[in-house]
């Protein structure tokens, strides 16, 4: 096959590209320029599209012996990921930009372009496994549970999955590093990237404040009694306990958590831990990563709401547009906007965006 290897400049995508070559594919490396004004250097584990990263990706491609180009996806990334991130926060939701990037950039804009240019698919260094079945390609959790990235890939529909190749799904991360070293890849010891790549300082709250303002407003309890002031409601997350700056203690002395963010009234609502309990989750924008489960029927499975969250046993049913998940045990602290991913054991069934919780 002819494949485009998306190369971030990190160790995973470099080894993935090398393995694709070993498998006999004709591979072309592409580094995505996602910022129109890239930083020169990485700072620690943050950022993934600095000039230094693009240089590292080029060197890895040289060592592997494949052509290498840089594709400018800055505009698509800004529109599809960064603007969505800001818009979601502005309506009081907590988005996951990595899901959006996989959905709109890596396996949409890049895959479409690759296909138009005559390639069959895209190789990335993501950790997830693909298995061919009578129902087409199915996606499973990675062999390395610590690195499993199936959660952020659960936004790929069957057509996107057909063009997605994850050669590292069966490998544990430490082996990837060893392999990079034995292949002579300079990036073997490069730190993993974490956090949000377009917030290079790592200060999400400050980054959001710059874009959405820092208008102060009340922090109230569930009864509406004002307990303090916040500096920009967007900078809080559901379930957050620290940094609330509340000076009036709760009657029983128990800690208080952010329960709700109300952008219209610029209010942050806090309450006790029990008030964070969620038993029922409604999700919208449903994407199925394989066969569609029968509608209006109850299915059993596992729900996961964070990248490395615990899979929670649940029952779920859908009507084609929305999905409703009933958890066997309550979950504490879930924001609207988060990604909801359904698993059947280790197989990714599909995903949705959390729109309501009860």
């Amino acid at each position: 096959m002819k494949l485009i290897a998306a190369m971030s400049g990190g160790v995973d995508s470099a080894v993935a590209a090398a393995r694709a070559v070993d498998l006999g594919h004709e591979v072309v490396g592409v580094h995505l320029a996602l910022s129109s004004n890239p930083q020169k250097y990485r700072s620690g584990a943050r950022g993934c599209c600095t000039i230094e990263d693009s240089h590292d990706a080029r060197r890895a491609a040289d060592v592997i012996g494949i052509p290498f180009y840089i594709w400018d996806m800055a505009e698509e990334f800004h529109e599809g990921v960064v603007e969505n991130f800001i818009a979601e926060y502005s309506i009081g939701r907590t988005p996951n930009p990595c899901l959006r990037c996989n959905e709109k950039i890596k396996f949409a804009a890049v895959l479409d372009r690759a296909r138009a240019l005559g390639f069959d698919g895209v190789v990335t260094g993501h950790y997830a496994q693909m298995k061919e079945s009578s129902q087409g390609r199915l996606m499973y959790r990675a062999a390395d549970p610590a690195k499993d990235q199936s959660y952020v890939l659960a936004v790929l529909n069957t057509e996107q999955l057909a063009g997605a190749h994850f050669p590292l799904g069966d490998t544990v991360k430490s082996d990837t590093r060893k392999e990079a070293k034995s292949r002579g890849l300079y990036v073997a010891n490069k730190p993993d990237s974490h956090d949000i790549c377009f917030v290079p300082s790592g200060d999400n709250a400050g980054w959001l404040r710059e874009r959405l303002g820092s208008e102060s407003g009340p922090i109230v309890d569930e009864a509406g009694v004002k307990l303090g002031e916040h500096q920009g409601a967007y900078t809080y997350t559901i379930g957050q306990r620290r940094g609330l700056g509340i000076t009036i203690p709760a009657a029983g002395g128990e800690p208080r958590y952010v329960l709700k963010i109300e952008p219209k009234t610029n209010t942050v609502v806090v309450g006790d831990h029990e008030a964070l309990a969620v038993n029922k989750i409604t999700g919208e924008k449903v994407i199925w990563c394989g066969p569609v489960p029968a509608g209006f029927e109850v299915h059993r499975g596992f729900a996961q709401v964070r990248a490395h969250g615990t899979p929670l046993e649940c029952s779920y049913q859908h009507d084609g547009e929305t999905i409703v998940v009933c958890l066997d045990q309550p979950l504490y602290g879930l924001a609207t906007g988060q990604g909801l991913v359904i698993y059947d054991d280790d197989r990714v069934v599909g995903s949705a965006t959390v729109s309501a919780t009860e």
Partner: protein
Amino acid sequence: MSIYFDHAATTPLSEAAAAALIEQMRKLGNASSLHTPGRSVRKDVEEARELIGQLVGAAPSEIVFTGSGTEANNLAIKGFYWKARDLNPRCKVIVISEFEHHAILDPVEWLEEHEGAEIIRIPITATGFVDLNFLSEVVATRGDEIAVIAVMHSNNEIGTIQPIAEIVKIAGDIPVHSDAVQSFGKVDFNFAELGLTSATISAHKIGGPLGVAALVLRRGLDVTPILHGGGQERDIRSGTLNAPAIVSFAAAAKNTIGSMAANDQKVRALKAELIAALTTEIPDIRVNGAQSPSLPGIVNLTFPGTESDGLLLLLDAEGIACSTGSACSAGVPRPSHVLLAMGISERDARSSLRFSLGISNTSAEIAKLASVISAVVDRARAALART
């Protein structure tokens, strides 16, 4: 077998230049040393200087060797600016053509940002020439404030040759610098006849080695140096003389200028062939810039409905090397400022490729390009259409 259509970027090292380079590299001695080995290397360097001077129409003492064309351009622009400003604080205007190479644009913009320079850009006509009426007007109204005028002898992306003699006439006493790296060795270029104050020429554009170029600088005129040290080159440029590269540069210049007329004829015919063949395959391509007066080998084409980086990837996969305009520091292709200056839309500028031919190219290579171009353009069009 790779087909190389990017001679404006760099050229294959000629046999004469390679032989001279290797021979000189084996020779011991610093050209600034006083002993016998030093004097021997100095002799080689000075013979090279005399030869290059003769070929470029300048006195030997007017050749200042540098490490690159970029360095020579920086030396001229910054040197003239600082010199003029020190003599007269009002003298802070730098006049350049709007489509200069980054080796001129960037030092000028740096001087604007850090040293208080004011930039006046001469507009470019739709066919790719500087607007002389505009320049006359600027010189008439602001002449006493102008530190230097810089206009390239020929444009590196579209190949048009600029009216340097007229510019020098309009400039009067104002220093005129011309970046001639694309012209020297390919078309007539005579420093003295043009009446220039300074010019840049470079070895690797004419079959010479990388890492050596020269600022041709009028005798008796000094500019403020950038590099300070031993003052090896007229006290204007410091650094141990790179004798092997300098000697090889002279060999390349002699070789290429010796056959310039024949090369011109051959390369120009290949260019016409390329334009005709591609137009047959893709009737809606457009040639950017006038074909006369122009360099023999450069042709810039717009392929409507494509993105040039897609074209480049697909042609590269077919073993054909050509070029988009320029890339930013991250390596992202940018719409060419040269094409934008000519009034070409950003969309069309993003759909353009430069093919630059040299004497080693053949009709068979052009036929190969013509045989793949339709499929390549179709794919590139599909890739753009998906957005």
